[in-house]
């Protein structure tokens, strides 16, 4: 439950950050002796937390954003290393997935339904 709240808090933070709206913390710092994640989280958990606070998602935790997939507004495909495999479900409930590579630089179209995909560099977490 707290985990789900955290995830929801992360998505809320991301959304709000992009709207540049100031918002008070849900809870003040350790008031009576129990630390907060802000104070005590460490390792990967902390990196995830700090990235969410800056409106970033380097570990691909949130659902990818869906774009119209037109030439002007292609589906963005975050990738590391210049290319990524894409599996296109041309229509909902299709059972045959159309697989193809998408390379950085220029748009690619699904050979079956023609949706435009564009590879964008994904920030590599350290």
């Amino acid at each position: 439950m707290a985990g789900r709240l955290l995830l929801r808090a992360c998505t809320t933070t991301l959304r709000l950050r992009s709207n540049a709206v100031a918002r008070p913390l849900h809870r003040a710092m350790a008031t009576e002796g129990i630390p907060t994640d802000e104070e005590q989280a460490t390792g990967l958990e902390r990196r995830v937390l700090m990235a969410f606070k800056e409106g970033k998602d380097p570990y691909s935790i949130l659902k990818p954003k869906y774009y119209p997939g037109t030439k002007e507004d292609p589906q963005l495909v975050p990738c590391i290393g210049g290319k990524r495999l894409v599996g296109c479900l041309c229509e909902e409930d299709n059972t045959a997935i159309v697989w193809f590579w998408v390379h950085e630089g220029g748009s690619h179209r699904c050979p079956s339904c023609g949706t435009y995909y564009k590879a964008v560099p994904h920030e590599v977490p350290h």
Partner: protein
Amino acid sequence: MAHHSHPYHMVDPSPWPLTGAIAALLMTSGLAVWFHFHSTSLMLLGTILLTLTVIQWWRDIVREGTFQGHHTPPVQKGLRYGMILFITSEVLFFLGFFWAFYHSSLAPTPELGGNWPPAGITPLDPFEVPLLNTAVLLASGVTVTWAHHAIMEGKRKQAIHALALTILLGAYFTFLQAMEYNEAPFTIADGVYGCTFFVATGFHGLHVLIGSTFLAICLARQISHHFTSEHHFGFEAAAWYWHFVDVVWLFLYISIYWWGS
């Protein structure tokens, strides 16, 4: 620390699954040896190995989550699914014993005198110690919820007190039930009544002990500042398990103690 672009935990190689499997083998074969050859050594060895395994395995999980930060939100979600599935399997486990009880008690055979309770059995008065036990467990459900809210609100002392009270109530239940077992006018060997009674309540008692242990570990961790006000899934898992133990008791009380008397 390996660098990867996913939020999941690729665990390091560990010997505990193997030692756990060996312990399970020794305990089960040891049980058979006990039945046939009157020696408990193999079973005892298996139990010791199991105890050592669970201590070290769960100690490693605490290290990975709390000290190394591997329990990101998606990892925590997986742990939640795991605990829920485990508790569900335990529900089904108890369902079997309730099935056995109702099978025998809804249509009592002529050997029992066509009655339930069977002829010659004096059941325990459901409005004496069993009712007190019900109150004790329900109260412990309240205190564990109190402890949870205290943790979420950052109140350390209250969390410790409420958790300790929960464990105390659990111990009180165990003590009362032990007294009842000692003074009961029937035994496990007293036909299907004794069998269904003691197997069902006995397994419940085992789960009370397991749940109390889980809560005690949480108390130690809370005192050691492991939990944060947002991230304390170990405690939540213990609380879920404790509520499950409470609910099983309620079904036991209604079915076996009350309706079955």
